[in-house]
């Protein structure tokens, strides 16, 4: 089974691959659904694909915007480039885009979750059109997904972690009419996360509520069923999220899959081992969405607009092979004496105290400054591109 992670930028793609993703989904500069993400230019895409392939991972490109007339011609022109670059699949939601990609390229087509495919006849519809894979809507339970896989005999991909649209994906245009930003073309303004005052004319009652804000999805308890049921790919949401998020979630799910496959963990042991680690990742509280049963009232995140964040991303290890120090790129300030965590590519993370902070010339600093390089004491388990985090 494939673990599919978000690659919101070239750096995040590399992070995802190094932390255990079997495949990464990315956006080009056009036609993807995350306009605000640091999307890939053609040359970056080539680099990303080469990097992923070198590490045995695949790259899927999102072409899941709903395109207008003249953009279809631009897409036609773009397709040969994608094939030359060696992208491993195109993620598509618009049936017009599907038709163009299918007729003008040999790229395998994955039907995006934006197409809201949640029933078997719909999956079979896409199979008849020539889709390689269907990414099911997040309204589908794991049991139903497994059944669809069995019946339709087509690759099935399912979201296992991350933020969730409260609407059927592709069926929300609030941003379009309130902010002039097309939510189905990458401009979602996240109106569903705002605080609203609800007025009920029937009884005059008023209440303040984040009534449209969904908790985040975590599917830890469902991974075993997915593996046993033949689900082809489990997807982590979050091309707009931080490098730290990509590293932490990818590593945890990768490890979880390995633990399950090796028979190390069963039942509640899985939850106990992994729950605390997932709580370190920024979240809007977790629920299992519709994976085990229809999402209920307790799937609403009614506490606040933003996510809860316990840890910050403080740095990236750039050199770990020196005998007496590691070279770190600083992303957030920390102080001498602070406790940091090194997120290793595999195995336990390492908690350590920042004994000293030196600038690259060896001068002692009391604190690190973002946008600089520092030298710190060497941690033996550290590897190049490991991330560092600190409790807030």
């Amino acid at each position, binding site marked *: 089974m494939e673990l599919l992670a978000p690659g919101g930028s*070239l750096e995040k793609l590399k992070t995802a691959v190094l932390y255990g993703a079997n495949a990464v989904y990315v956006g080009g500069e056009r036609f993807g659904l995350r306009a605000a993400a640091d999307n890939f230019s053609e040359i970056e895409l080539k*680099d990303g694909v080469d*990097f992923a392939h070198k590490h045995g991972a695949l790259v899927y490109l999102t072409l899941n*915007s*709903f395109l*207008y*007339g003249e*953009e*279809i011609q631009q897409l036609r022109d773009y397709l040969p480039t994608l094939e030359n670059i060696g992208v491993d699949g195109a993620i598509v*939601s*618009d*049936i*017009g*885009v599907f038709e*163009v990609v299918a007729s003008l390229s040999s790229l395998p087509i994955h039907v995006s979750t934006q197409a809201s495919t*949640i*029933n*078997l*006849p*719909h999956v*079979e*519809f896409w199979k008849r059109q020539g889709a390689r894979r269907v990414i099911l809507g997040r309204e589908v339970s794991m049991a*139903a997904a497994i059944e*669809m896989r069995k019946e339709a005999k087509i690759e099935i991909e399912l979201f296992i972690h991350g933020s969730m649209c*409260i*609407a*059927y994906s*592709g*069926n*929300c*245009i609030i941003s*379009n*009419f*309130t902010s*002039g*930003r*097309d939510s*189905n*073309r990458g*401009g979602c303004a996240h*109106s569903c996360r*705002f*605080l*609203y*005052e*609800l*007025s009920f*004319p*029937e009884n005059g009652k008023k209440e303040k509520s984040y*009534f*449209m804000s969904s908790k985040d999805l975590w599917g830890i308890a469902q991974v075993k069923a997915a593996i046993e049921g033949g689900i082809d790919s489990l997807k982590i949401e979050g091309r707009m999220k931080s490098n730290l998020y990509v590293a932490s979630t990818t590593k945890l799910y990768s490890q979880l899959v390995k633990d399950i496959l090796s028979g190390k963990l069963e039942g509640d042991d899985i939850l106990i081992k992994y729950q605390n680690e997932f709580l370190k990742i920024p979240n809007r509280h977790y629920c299992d969405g519709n994976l085990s049963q229809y999402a*209920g*009232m307790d799937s*609403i995140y009614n506490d606040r607009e933003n996510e809860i964040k316990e840890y910050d991303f403080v740095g990236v290890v*750039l*050199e770990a092979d020196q005998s007496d120090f590691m*070279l770190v790129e600083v992303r957030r300030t920390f102080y001498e004496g602070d406790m940091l965590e090194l997120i290793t590519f595999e195995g336990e993370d390492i908690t350590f105290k920042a004994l000293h902070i030196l600038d*690259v010339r060896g001068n002692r600093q009391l604190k690190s400054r973002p946008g*600089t*390089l520092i030298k710190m004491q060497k941690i033996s388990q550290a590897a190049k591109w490991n991330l560092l985090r600190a409790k807030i």
Partner: protein
Amino acid sequence: MSEFIFYALSVMDIEKNLSQTGHHSLTIILPHAQLTPHLALENDQFEKLAIFAWARGLRVAVDLDLIPDDDQLEKIMRVVAEILTKWPKTIFRVKNYGLASLLVSYYPNILLHLNVEFGHHNKESLLKLAHIFEKNLQRFILSIELPQNDIAAIVAALPSSLEIEILLHGPIFLFYSPRKLLGRDEKNEARWPSSHLFALADSEENAHKNFRVYQNSHGTILYHHKYLSLLEEWEKLAQLGVTHFRLDWREIKDRSALYDSWQKKEYLQVATHTPFKTIRGFHQNNKSDSIFVKLKNQNLRRQGPQENGRTYLGTVMDVQRGGHLAILNLNSTNQLCVGEQIVITTPEGKEITVKVASLFNSRWQSIERLAYEEIGFINYVKGVTTKSKVEKV
């Protein structure tokens, strides 16, 4: 020949439709509560109006715009079977391709109106769907996001035998969730309440005002606080080839005055009788995806030699005034060597060309070249800041 099409929630709607000389519709839409998330009729009311409509020579079309899972499909197909048993010529207005395919497989002669209101902004989409659903497809219900030029292009590309419908006057449907988002079950926090609920939702955020929110057994839907109105545009749209214009007044309690004004072509009066302000939406143009291009720093965009004649090398990671610049080589196929010339572009777009006189590693040992994913240090260059882009000439 243009046709106007109305929803019926009462006998009055049907009678008013029939009394509209020159405007009356040959088809009436009867919304069935088990087949649509929008305001609709319960089964007994539906049956009563269907009998009434068919008896008066009207054809009945039924909205089937749910996005069902497999469990819901079974229930839907039971209701559809009941309707078709009684009125075999009923048309279904379907949104979900899976459901549409299922209907065609069960009822090979069924007529469908495909609801393509979300997405489907290009002719290729509709041509493909027209090809797939062939003889079963009578009409497309187009998106309200389409500007008139796109409507024209789409209509021109489609077979003239296909009917084209747009919303002429009615609510702007913004959001559809399967979750029931209003209220709580007092006894069990985890359960959704089962009742139908309505609320107005108001945020302090600009333009997020007075959304009308409905909850029913299908989930929650949300409408914009204004109505879409293209009342004064219909003749132009008809010339473009739009054949059917939908007027959706289900939310308006006193619809009688609306029908009367409509009949007299008193469009301003129609607006007066509508309790919501109106907008024309994206009818003139739609630039709702252009905002982000401006937000990205194009100065730091990684380009290939074919774009600007230079080879991208990497980025500046550290700057010490009077001391050094640290460069991370991010080009897997290129090295930086002593003696080469580089162009450094700052985030503000300032370009500085320098010759690499010397290179050092993090131990300050002199090196000759900087390989992929390595950090190297060169002498300080005035005006350069971190994140600056480094290219080889």
